[in-house]
């Protein structure tokens, strides 16, 4: 009982400190963003160029070479799933080394360690948000958008909580098990193909749908497709499921991170 109580107090403290150190968090995010493009000629434009180049290749390969014919406006479809997916992958990959790669902060400076994974996540969120205009432009010039798009912030927020839980998990586990960062790379590669990003969930044969459903990313990406591409209503049950998933993963992430936190300074 005591352990349970302490865990919840720790988790609460964890989140409260994120708020208390928000100006440092913002500064860290700013630094990440700046350092990402510092020294490059195109600078910030890369944020827009990266997804554009990527969908160009995907469109060529999947649309024209492999003829995924059933999906109209395939490029828009791709963008809807790919942008939030890119955010997740980048956050998880960078998040795994957030603590290990910044050991000098953890062992020498005095600020809450969760700022490191949190800043990684928020940096990539910013990137995602900055690349959204491309998606919206594509939408407006092809299929048009409906008022469903107003739910987008809610969806992004839920995904943020979900990803924060995952990033906390990878960041803290990677301190004692350096295998984590390698595993994360492979896991995200598997998940990329197991999540309906380059194909639509409807095209998957019935007997494999179960595999699709146990992947927590499916419901998030499908909801992006629904809101933006299909202009459809996301059913209440999906919102409930996503909320539950987000909170569950956030909780697991918080508990594991807080449990392992003591060991950070010693293991690094």
């Amino acid at each position, binding site marked *: 009982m005591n352990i349970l109580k302490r865990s919840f107090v720790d988790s609460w403290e964890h989140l409260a400190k994120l708020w208390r*150190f928000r*100006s*440092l968090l913002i*500064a*860290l995010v700013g*630094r990440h963003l*700046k*350092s990402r493009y*510092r*020294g490059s000629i195109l600078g910030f434009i890369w944020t827009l160029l990266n997804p554009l180049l990527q969908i160009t290749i995907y469109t060529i390969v999947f649309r024209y070479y492999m003829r995924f014919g059933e999906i109209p406006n395939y490029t828009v479809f791709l963008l809807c799933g790919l942008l939030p997916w890119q955010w997740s992958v980048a956050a998880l990959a960078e998040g795994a080394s957030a603590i290990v790669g910044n050991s*000098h*902060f*953890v*062992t*020498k*400076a*005095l*600020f809450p360690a969760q700022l490191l994974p949190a800043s990684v996540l928020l940096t990539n969120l910013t990137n995602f948000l900055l690349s959204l205009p491309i998606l919206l432009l594509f939408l407006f010039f092809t299929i048009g958008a409906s008022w469903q798009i107003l739910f987008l912030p809610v969806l992004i927020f839920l995904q943020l909580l979900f990803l924060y839980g995952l990033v906390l998990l990878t960041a803290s586990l990677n301190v*004692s*098990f350096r*295998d*984590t960062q390698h595993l994360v790379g492979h896991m995200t590669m598997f998940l990329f193909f197991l999540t309906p990003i380059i194909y639509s969930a409807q095209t998957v044969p019935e007997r494999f749908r179960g595999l699709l459903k146990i992947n927590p990313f499916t419901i998030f990406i499908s909801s992006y497709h629904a809101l933006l591409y299909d202009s459809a209503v996301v059913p209440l049950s999906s919102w409930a499921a996503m909320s539950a998933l987000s909170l569950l993963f956030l909780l697991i992430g918080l508990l*594991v991170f807080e*449990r*392992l936190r*003591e060991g950070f*300074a*010693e293991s690094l």
Partner: protein
Amino acid sequence: MVKKVHYTIELIEISKSFKRLNFANKRSYTTLKSFFLNPWKTLFDDRSVKRVAVQNITMRVPRGASVGVIGRNGSGKSTLLKLITGIYRPDSGRINVHGRVAALIELGAGFHPDFTGRENVILGGLMHGLSRLQIEERLEEIIAFAELEEAIDEPIRCYSSGMFMRLGFSLAVHTDPDILIIDEVLSVGDEAFVRKCKERVAALKAAGKTLLLVTHDLEAALRWCDEVIWLDHGEIKDRGDPRRVIDAYRGFLEKGEEQQLSEKNRQTDHYNTNLLDDQEKSVAFVEQNELSDSFNSDFANAFGVSGGAISLAEFKRWGSRELEIRAVELLDQAGQQRALFHGGDVMIIKIIYKQNEIVDDYHFGIAIRRNDGLMVFGTNTLIEGQTIIIKNDGVITIELKDFSLLEGSYLLDVAVHRSDGYPYDYHSAVLHFAVRSEKPRIGVCAPILTWEVGQL
């Protein structure tokens, strides 16, 4: 709720140990496999091998006090600091720290090389818990103190290490600390800047800030601190009045060194006796005592001696052995074996010899070298005009009165040879000894001197 705070730093029965990293023992490592096999045990079981870093430390630092922490390397000083600053959590005990801590542990920790000095100061200030507004207010002052007006908008990677340290120090002391924790960093930059740093620290002290100083520089501890805590093997060995504790600590270090030197000499002796019947003309014998190295760096720090006090001088022996030196002893006036002398002491060298063949041309000699090879003194019975008649076996005693060497580590050579220099038995670096002086004079010899002022 009014809470009276008597102490800015309060530690109550703090203990901290670390999991021992045993590379030879595979089982002591947590692997991903063992984690998945038994996640509960990996995360919650703490029954692994431990190394105690600090144990049962209770200390209270009142507001405005200056406390020094001294002790040998590995005595737990840094762990203690990291516990106070909250980087480590104690295994047991309670820590209360009231007020903002500025830790000068690692200056400029968290500076990013690609960003300009200005950007780094802003970020660093946020890390120290300042608000953006407070940083803006102080930015110019921080830059001015660091003397970096010109370079502040260049990326940090273009800075010299001195500039880097200056910026780090300037930032740390401008964060309005209530508690200033200093770990051996009052020596950044050139002499002028060091003076400036010390003035700044003195000003903070005068302004009633609490000061925690971890140092090997005992003079600094003496000058700054109201109380000194001596840590040894993670426990408080002594505490209280700085003069008394520091003297006790110095005495402790001397005793330790004395022991080490005699240990070393015993090893040499052992080698000697083993080689009595050996016809080899020379033997090499290399010291490899890691413990002694770390010990000596403590010692060097404490006494301001630079470099490893005891060199890796090799014991060597050569000669034709018609006359043989069987043992050499270094004694004080009381006839006690010694390896540590003070300036002005009497030193007695005993050479125990054995005659293997009858020879009639023989002289005994001694030489003292400093451990860096400098020949300090050498003589023999031929130079001294001493005639010595030996019969079979015996002992020769040489007394050095008012032995006036300055602080340092020295080696002794002894030999018996013909008047033309042909060696019967030569022992090089047969004994090691150290000399301690009260005054930090420079050089090798200590003449007795007086100072007088007069009119021209």
